[in-house]
């Protein structure tokens, strides 16, 4: 029975994906894409990966969708020459071959499947964490996570670099220049505090149950954006020291803890014995703040020259 449900879910995703790839109006495609993201969130739950599901919905569908929506109107200006029917056919055939090859590989995956789950089980007690995914993210593969925060930071620098140097103390343009309507204003006033609480809880709970810095940060970012859209809060200028410190806090607190690990625990990104959880939570606080701010700023785009 559940397999039938799964199959229907899969078909829905596929249909939405084909709609996304089929072309046509930009907005419709983006909305279809956000639908794919939400459905994928469900699928991740079905795959017993709730942490991923939260991330997929918050970041992969939500914030990404927000970014993409802004591009929908501009897309026609980047259009290139038409490709012919023959090309479409070729591309379709190639796509089918890609599918076939991948399907064969998926079906031929070894059984029993190799897994690092036992390794994680063995190592997790040393970290004092309850959520194995958080354990992998912040302990066993902390380097990846550190780099990931750097990736966000570099992406932000890249986006800002599209504005000339002299605009670097100004604010990005508001997301939708229209005056805030009463309904949005009301919605925002109600939703923002609730959402913020949810975000903070998600990060806090992340140590032991599904959730964590990325999911929590994404929700917080969404709330901040909503507040700005509703006019509850101005779009900040990117030159402020506080904002910049908030952007830097996550990656560099993490980096600092990593270096401290050399002296206190004997290896880079190792945590001092007995204080693992405390330090990890501290790092997560910093990362959550940075992620929230960075995601919001990435959605807002480069500073446009308006002085805030």
């Amino acid at each position: 029975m559940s397999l039938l449900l799964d199959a229907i879910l899969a078909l829905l995703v596929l249909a939405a994906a084909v709609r996304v790839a089929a072309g046509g109006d930009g907005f419709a495609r983006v909305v279809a894409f956000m639908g794919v993201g939400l459905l994928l969130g469900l699928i991740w739950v079905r795959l017993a990966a709730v942490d991923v599901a939260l991330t997929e919905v918050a970041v992969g569908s939500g914030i990404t969708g927000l970014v993409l929506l802004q591009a929908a109107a501009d897309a026609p200006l980047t259009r290139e020459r038409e490709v012919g029917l023959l090309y479409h056919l070729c591309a379709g055939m190639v796509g089918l071959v890609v599918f076939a090859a991948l399907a064969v590989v998926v079906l031929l995956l070894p059984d029993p499947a190799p897994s690092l789950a036992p390794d994680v089980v063995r190592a997790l007690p040393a970290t004092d964490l309850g959520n194995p995914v958080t354990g992998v993210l912040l302990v066993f593969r902390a380097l990846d996570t550190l780099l990931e925060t750097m990736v966000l930071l570099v992406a932000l620098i890249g986006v800002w670099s599209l504005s000339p140097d002299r605009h670097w103390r100004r604010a990005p343009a508001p997301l939708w220049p229209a005056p805030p309507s009463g309904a949005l204003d009301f919605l925002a006033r109600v939703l923002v505090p609730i959402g913020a609480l949810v975000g903070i809880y998600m990060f806090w709970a992340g140590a032991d149950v599904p959730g964590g810095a990325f999911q929590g940060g994404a929700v917080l970012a969404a709330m901040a954006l909503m507040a700005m859209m509703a006019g509850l809060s101005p779009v900040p200028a990117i030159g402020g020291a506080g904002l910049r410190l908030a952007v830097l806090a996550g990656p560099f607190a993490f980096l600092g803890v990593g270096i401290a690990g050399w002296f206190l625990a004997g290896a880079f990104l190792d945590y001092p014995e007995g204080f693992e959880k405390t330090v990890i939570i501290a790092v997560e606080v910093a990362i959550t703040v940075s992620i929230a701010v960075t995601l919001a700023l990435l959605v807002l785009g480069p500073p446009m020259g308006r002085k805030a």
Partner: protein
Amino acid sequence: MSGAVLFASADALLVVAVILPLFAVPVLFLAPSRIAERATVVVLGLSLLVALAIAGGVGRSGAAAASFIGGWRPPLGVGLRADGFSAFMLVMTAAVLLATGLFAMTTPGRSRAGGERMPPAFWMLLASVFSALNLVFLAEDLFTLYVALELLTFAAVPLVCLEGKLAQVEAALRYLLFALFGSLLYLLGVVVIYGLYGTLDIILVAREATASPGFVLALALMTAGMMAKAALFPLHLWLPPAHSGAPPAASALLSAVVIKAPIFLLVRFWLDLAPSTLAVAVAPMLAGLGAAAIVVCSLVALAQPRLKLLIAYSTAAQIGYLFLMFPLAAASSPWSALAWTGGALHLASHAFSKAAMFMAAGLIAEALGHDRIAGLSGVGRVVPVSLFAFGLGGLSLMGLPPAGGFVAKVMLLSAAVHLGAWWIAAVILLGGLLAGGYVLKVVVLALQRPAEPLVAQPVAHWREWVALALALVAVGFGFVPLEPSHFLFIGRPASWAGMVP
């Protein structure tokens, strides 16, 4: 255990190499730009020292250095490892990037002649590129490599459009999208590998890997992804506009070192990861594409009306030599080591000469206000040092003595001759001829007497000398002995044996 001692150990230096450049970013974020600029150059200099220390340690001990992040060993943890080849790449990258930093720096004591000050974003991106490259050269984990490659791409792409012109933004977007396409193909391969072996550590995977359908597909996807990022013909669509449109300092580092990261990984995949039967089967195909790159892109370079485009196409062509190396290096013959050394040497001498050429071209453009080749007549009188740097860099591309390109070419030729790969030898020679064509075309024009007196802006001599220094390093590689290098083979075949977490 004393952290201070650990900090200076060769193993810890691997981590330092990755994180040190990142410390320039907060300084740039918070401090006034002039101070931040100096600070960044200091960080670049320190990073070069770190790279040299790693290379020194590897050379002295005769064994690879390794470091496990957080003390967690693979497969659960992530390991960094520097063998001879990695250390070689680290030093080369650090040297080129330091030179780039010096070139881009505001001339000490006065405002920069000609162009404006480089924006803080440039310096932040430069630092990020540095860190990402070091990670690519050191990481043994396929997923960490994915993140490192993305970090590299995101840092490199905005460098293309720092000036914000239409053509540059076009080029940057195209570069980004194609690189992302490649990254995801790579990631798909990584996912399949995890599904097969339950680990992402290259060394552990290599130990278990057999030519199963999954592994074959994974290798194919990863290879194609890296080729897209390396702009190997026929996937070079993004390279000429991106490398030619960027500001000179950015072009230099893009063409010299950024493009080498995916190539480095291809070498790792095919010589460390793949079973040799597969490597031998695929190598001729890689070499065929390399040959096509050399011939087609060199010819196209000859037709270019603008100097920076000419140099960019030359990069697209020179990448081909590194792929020509594969069948020679993959063959199990004593001559493979020579081909390998030749390939590495070509990679390094191309990095230095190409950086020098892009900088020289930038200075020429700055002096004349354009870089149309037809209008370069007599430019040698205006910026002689830059032209000399361009010529010396070109000497290496042409494979003439005493430049590094010559020694590399002789090594590759010798290996090709011994292994009976005549077509590879022929392509190497033809490539030299075509390179001679496009380099000499520019140099000869520049040496002529100008038709009308040239009106030229002054350029900072400081920067001309940086370009010349790079070109001289490229020439210096010509004094490497014509035999397989022992250093490059330190730590091969790769293994974690004897490495303490």
